[in-house]
């Protein structure tokens, strides 16, 4: 099964959402409180076989005067769903263009639309939408179980025991044998239960172990059924998966989650819809990558074998996770306020996003992103931002959900445009090493993307040096020598300014003008030209090291183009 479309009205924090996932694997990201988890909640509420006890807070702003409505359209339907004795005669059509029509035509994919409505009575009603019938077909939990929805919630130990209706009991097939043995076992005391001698349970445990390992769960010994007496007394729920004698319930969060996911997923043969909130929860980076890679590989294998693929819908705050999912699977959730309309964007130009994911994946979790053009600038801005909070009630830009991203040089405009399409507020900070092409200018202007650059077409080196006092030029030179070596810097300058001897160059900058034909401003231009050409500062770390000097330069020369550009960036970032 695959979710083709979900419409949400008045549910939790969302007033309205209309989203077509458009693929078997979607990784939802977006700034905090944009509604990512609520989207998963909505899918679960509509398609899960669980009964939900709805309360006032499930309505937007606790306003129960209007009903909450969730409509989920599902494709890649299983045989059971399509059967005419079940829901087959209610199928609707999903066109190749990705649109829904009530009665299927031509080669439309058969899909089913489930509508969940809850009004002030708090009584949920699940029904199928099909305009062709007069009375909507209501859906029982038995019907909904056919949609094969699995939600990974970390704290749920239910799936690690053989309780009634548990996935493990389904993997086992029949637990009658177990309950008979249990009754005897109770008499013979706990240690004599010998559950591991029950072939069916042992086999299910073995299968669970294989599946869990596949997703990256750590297995200490081996999985086996064991007795764990709970409050409910002795029942099949008292048989729990044990790993080397320890209940799996007590394993690390990550392992527990991966084992649960693997077990749940395996129970649905015809393509489960798997919802994972914050896949990274409890996992080290390499296991995040491992788990995602495994989920992707599972899908690829299903495609190859012509089996139902199912769907993974997950949320994450981990740049490691999105690095592994790749830009095609990214979906960015954005919410407009105060209307709380939620939109989900898919990258139309994955290549530009790929670059961003390589250079600054974290920026994708921000609300507003300033794309900078080069390493000097990103280092400089990252350093300078430390000086800003004092002027903005102590708030760093990160608290405002703002990020500064590496635009990888000439890719910056394309990246900014791609981010803008994904719903991020975006601006560019660039110097004028190379000028923007007319097309780029038009596109950026059309998208409303601001470009902060130094007045007078200066590059960063020119902007810095031209505004710096003698003392600060000296500091900059000292810093460059420290980073690049005295000889390298002095030789670069010597070649550029032949009328200065090395001795003079090594002395203080304030004296250079006594020996040179050039004036102070011209000398600064010459140094800036060499610095740029010889790439003294083209390094993020060096740029960041420069930032305290740059800050002082801008402070001392508030009218300079450097100060103006930085001020514009500051104003935008703190807006």
């Amino acid at each position, binding site marked *: 099964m695959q979710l083709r479309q979900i419409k949400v009205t008045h549910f939790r924090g969302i007033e309205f959402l209309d989203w077509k996932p458009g693929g078997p694997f979607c990784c939802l990201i977006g700034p905090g409180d944009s509604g990512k988890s609520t989207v998963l909640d909505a899918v679960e509420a509509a398609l899960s076989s669980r009964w939900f006890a709805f309360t006032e807070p499930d309505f937007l702003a606790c306003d129960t005067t209007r009903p909450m409505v969730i409509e989920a359209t599902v494709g890649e339907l299983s045989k059971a769903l399509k*059967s005419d*004795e079940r829901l087959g005669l209610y199928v609707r059509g999903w066109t190749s263009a990705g649109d829904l029509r009530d009665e299927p*035509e031509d080669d439309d994919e*058969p899909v089913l639309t489930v509508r969940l409505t809850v009004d002030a009575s708090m009584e949920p009603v699940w029904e199928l939408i099909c305009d062709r019938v007069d009375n909507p077909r209501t859906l029982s939990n038995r019907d909904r179980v056919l949609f094969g929805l699995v939600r990974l919630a970390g704290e749920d130990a239910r799936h690690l025991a053989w309780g009634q209706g548990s996935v493990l009991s389904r993997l086992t097939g029949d637990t009658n044998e177990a309950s008979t043995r249990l009754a005897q076992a109770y008499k013979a005391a706990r240690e004599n239960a010998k559950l591991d001698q029950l072939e069916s349970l042992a086999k299910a445990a073995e299968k669970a172990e294989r599946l869990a390992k596949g997703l990256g769960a750590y297995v200490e010994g081996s999985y086996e059924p064991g007795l764990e007496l709970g409050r409910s007394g002795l029942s099949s729920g008292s048989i729990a998966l044990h790993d080397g004698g320890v209940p799996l319930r007590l394993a690390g969060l990550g392992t527990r989650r991966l084992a649960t996911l693997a077990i749940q997923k395996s129970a649905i043969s015809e393509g489960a819809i798997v919802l994972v909130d914050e896949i990274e929860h409890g996992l080290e980076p390499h296991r995040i990558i491992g788990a995602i890679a495994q989920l992707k590989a599972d899908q690829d294998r299903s495609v190859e074998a012509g089996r139902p693929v199912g769907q993974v819908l997950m949320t994450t705050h981990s740049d490691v996770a999105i690095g592994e999912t790749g830009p095609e699977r990214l979906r960015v959730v954005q919410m407009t306020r105060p209307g709380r309309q939620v939109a989900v964007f898919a990258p139309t130009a994955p290549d530009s996003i790929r670059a961003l994911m390589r250079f600054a994946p974290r920026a994708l979790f921000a609300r507003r992103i300033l794309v900078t053009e080069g390493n000097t600038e990103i280092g400089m801005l990252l350093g300078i931002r430390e000086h800003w909070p004092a002027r903005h009630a102590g708030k760093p830009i990160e608290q405002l959900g703002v990020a500064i991203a590496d635009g990888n040089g000439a890719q910056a405009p394309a990246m900014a445009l791609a981010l803008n399409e994904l719903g991020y507020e975006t601006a560019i900070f660039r110097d004028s090493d190379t000028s923007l092409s007319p097309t780029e200018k038009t596109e950026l202007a059309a998208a409303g993307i601001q470009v902060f650059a130094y007045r007078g077409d200066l590059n960063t080196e020119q902007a810095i040096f031209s505004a710096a006092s003698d003392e600060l030029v000296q500091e900059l030179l000292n810093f460059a020598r420290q980073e690049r070596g005295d000889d390298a810097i002095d030789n670069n300058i010597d070649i550029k300014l032949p009328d200065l001897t090395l001795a003079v160059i090594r002395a203080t900058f304030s004296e250079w003008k006594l020996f040179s034909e050039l004036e102070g401003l011209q000398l600064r231009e010459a140094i800036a030209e060499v610095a740029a050409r010889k790439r003294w500062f083209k390094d993020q770390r060096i740029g960041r090291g420069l930032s305290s000097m740059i800050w002082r330069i801008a402070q001392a020369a508030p009218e300079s183009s450097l100060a103006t550009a930085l001020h514009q960036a500051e104003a935008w970032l703190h807006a």
Partner: protein
Amino acid sequence: MPEASDLFNLGNAAVVAPAGHGKTEIIAKVAALGQRALILTHTHAGVHAIRSRLKRLGIPRSRVAVDTIAGWSMRYAHAFPGIAKPPTGMPQGAEWDQLYRGARLALNVAAVRAVVAASYDRILIDEYQDCGSLQHELATELARIVPTLIFGDPMQGIFEFAGATLSWDADIHPLFPFAGTLEKPHRWAGKNPELGQWIAETREKLLRGEPIDLADPRITFRQSDDAFDLGALFEGIEGKEGSFAAIHCHKTICYRLAKAAGGGYQAIEEVAASRLQQFANLWDRATDGTGRLTAIKSLLSDSFSIKIPADGVDVDPADAALEAELREIEPALNLGNGAAAAARIMALTPKHSRWKLFRRDLWRDAERAATEVSAGRAESMDKATTNVRQRVSLSGRKLPKRTVSTPLLLKGNR
């Protein structure tokens, strides 16, 4: 002779199944071999017969769907009305063609084909000789989606007049290759094997174009010049077990024969139930007890054969009491909608020893309809008869032990 397991492994195929040769049994058995089969037939009686066979063989209902071709087409055409454009309500006349055409068109849609493919792993069509060309087209399309076995007997066509004129060699076998003929007359095994043998032989003869030999010693031939010679109906059946059918080609003569036989033979009702409908119309038009009594009396005279007591014979006191009771009820036909009184009258009349009911189904249906109206479950007799007919068509009817009817009605009706 093909076995169920052999047939199950065939793709599309045709099995020739002479009457009484275990066709229903083999259909049920083949259907049970898969996950979910669809069995299509023509008549509600057929549906009923197959359902009871499945039940007897202990095959779970969920494993086999049984429907008439018309019912199945209605279901699919109304589920996908945009493409199928089914006639509204119950199809009449040429609207049936529209229905089959529509169902056939719906199968052009990929999603509908997917639903059919997901719903059945096998389709079995019974009485294929009764398929018209549009039904054949529908079956052909279904066979492209799901392996389809058809069962029929070119010698048993009863709907030629309604357009069922498919040629087995030219139309059917190219799509459904011949897979064999059922050879054992199971129906008569143990009961009347000689009759089974005779029917099988006669069928062969007819296939070869030879006439039925009435001089065959196994046949009792009794010539009669009078259509209402009741001796023909009763001679020689005294003390014999089993079921008897008297056949005449004309429906109205069958009713008159049943009447003349004074309840000894029952007439069979058509599913169309025009006589019941006629009663309902008359009843609904009546505005008072008198009008209603007229409607009942008219139906009574078409359903009962009334014996006049011979001179000098005393009236049975029970009959006299019954007649008195009926007279007491009569005025109540004026009360309210009168249906309660009608239902009571209809329940009492068959108890009269000299009033012989020969259209039992008709009278019972009328009684049921009157009960519906009096219980407030239907607002008019017309609506009530529709409900009753629907229930009957779903549950089927039991064939009376002694029947006088036409070949068409005996074999099952639309």
